[in-house]
């Protein structure tokens, strides 16, 4: 039996030890915003925050998250009100199919928390562990930089 807090809500579930954290979020908690691409820690689509740090949820076991606080992409918007990062992704056309977007958003959250005014080079490096196959990286970088230049956008959702 594990107990985890996801996006502020606490869940207790009995899980098989071999269930990955990503599958746990999607299948047990129906939080399907976290996407699974490569499932071996390369593509970054499944990135979430575990105890505040961005990690790949496909290469962590659900049982390892026992007692932890998790934030997934579902934590960002408040009702119909998009998070500044989500709005910036929309403004900058930083997504087409959207498959990789949850991972990029959570990676960007961690980046902007640690470094609220990153340079373009720092943004590029921060997202280097996330793969996008259709949109291209320039609009994504532009979106993250847009938020970093909006004073109210930096801390929301953290």
């Amino acid at each position, binding site marked *: 039996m594990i107990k985890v807090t996801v996006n502020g809500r606490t869940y207790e579930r009995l899980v*098989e*030890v*071999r*269930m*990955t954290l990503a*599958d746990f979020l999607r299948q047990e908690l129906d939080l399907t915003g976290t996407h699974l691409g490569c*499932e*071996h*820690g*390369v593509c*970054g689509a499944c*990135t979430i925050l575990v105890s505040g*740090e*961005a*990690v*790949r949820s*496909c*290469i*962590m*076991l659900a*049982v*390892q998250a026992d007692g932890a606080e998790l934030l997934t992409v579902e934590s960002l918007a408040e009702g119909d009100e998009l998070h500044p990062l989500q709005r910036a992704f929309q403004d900058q056309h930083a997504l087409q199919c959207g498959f990789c977007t949850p991972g990029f958003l959570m*990676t960007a959250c*961690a980046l902007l928390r640690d470094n609220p005014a990153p340079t373009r080079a720092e943004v590029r*490096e*921060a997202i*280097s*562990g996330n793969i996008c196959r259709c949109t291209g990286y320039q609009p994504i970088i532009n979106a993250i930089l847009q938020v970093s230049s909006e004073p109210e956008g930096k801390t929301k959702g953290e």
Partner: protein
Amino acid sequence: MKPAPFEYFAPVELQEALDLLERYGDEAKILAGGQSLMPLMNLRLARPGLIIDINRLSSLDTITATPEGGLTIGALTRQRALERSKIVQEQNPILAAAMPLIGHFQIRNRGTIGGSLVHADPAAELPAVSLLLGAEFLLRSKSAVRVVPAAEFFLSYLTTAIRPAELLTEIRLPKWPSGEAWAVQEIARRKGDFALIGVALRAELDAEETIQKAVIVMFGVDSKPLRMERAEAILKGRRISEAFLRELSGVVAEELQPDSDIHASAAYRKEVGGVLVRRALESALANVKETRTH
């Protein structure tokens, strides 16, 4: 469900972990940061029958300065913690500089120093840097403790001197001498990818900038981190000039005997290896010059 079924233990005390290793030895796999093991399990390239998850052994998550000026690092210390650590930045600049080269920050948030060392991927940064630094590894089993120097620890691809009942608990780094030139560099297709080839080097200089002693370790070129003994020997007693750097590149390229793989040919690795050592040495000397004039 990606990984094949396994039995799972998550000890909270070191002794408990050692008891489990004593009992299950060969069939058990230790799960630390999981950034190499979990991908292998998801792909079912690894199907361990039993997992000993050491993530709850918080006593192994420590960075301590020793009275002698060295560092003692618990094996479970996250790579990201080393990267952010003020103590590491102050006491061991080369270790600090190597950390951002490891994977991506999401990987370093989970990946541990001990996990990387015991996994012993020949393209990994930490085994090479630990060899360069003359690190010692504390290996504990239920009945014994032994200390193995890095030079005797790495044996081959993913193979170290650790025994089935042993757990790497601590990494000991001797005092880093200030004033020594150093560099760590690598070539990868993209930031965060595995290094096609990399180098960590250090050089002791006298007041005239003549090299007294140099250590060069390359990674991604052999089955384990590789000391470049011929190149080290020719550096001794030399001052750096353009002609000498060209000679050095040639010696390194000749000394390297890398394999070809889908990422790079052997010829490419030899050529680039020579260039990389030259570049690293130049940047090491430029940096040390700058700190001396300040």
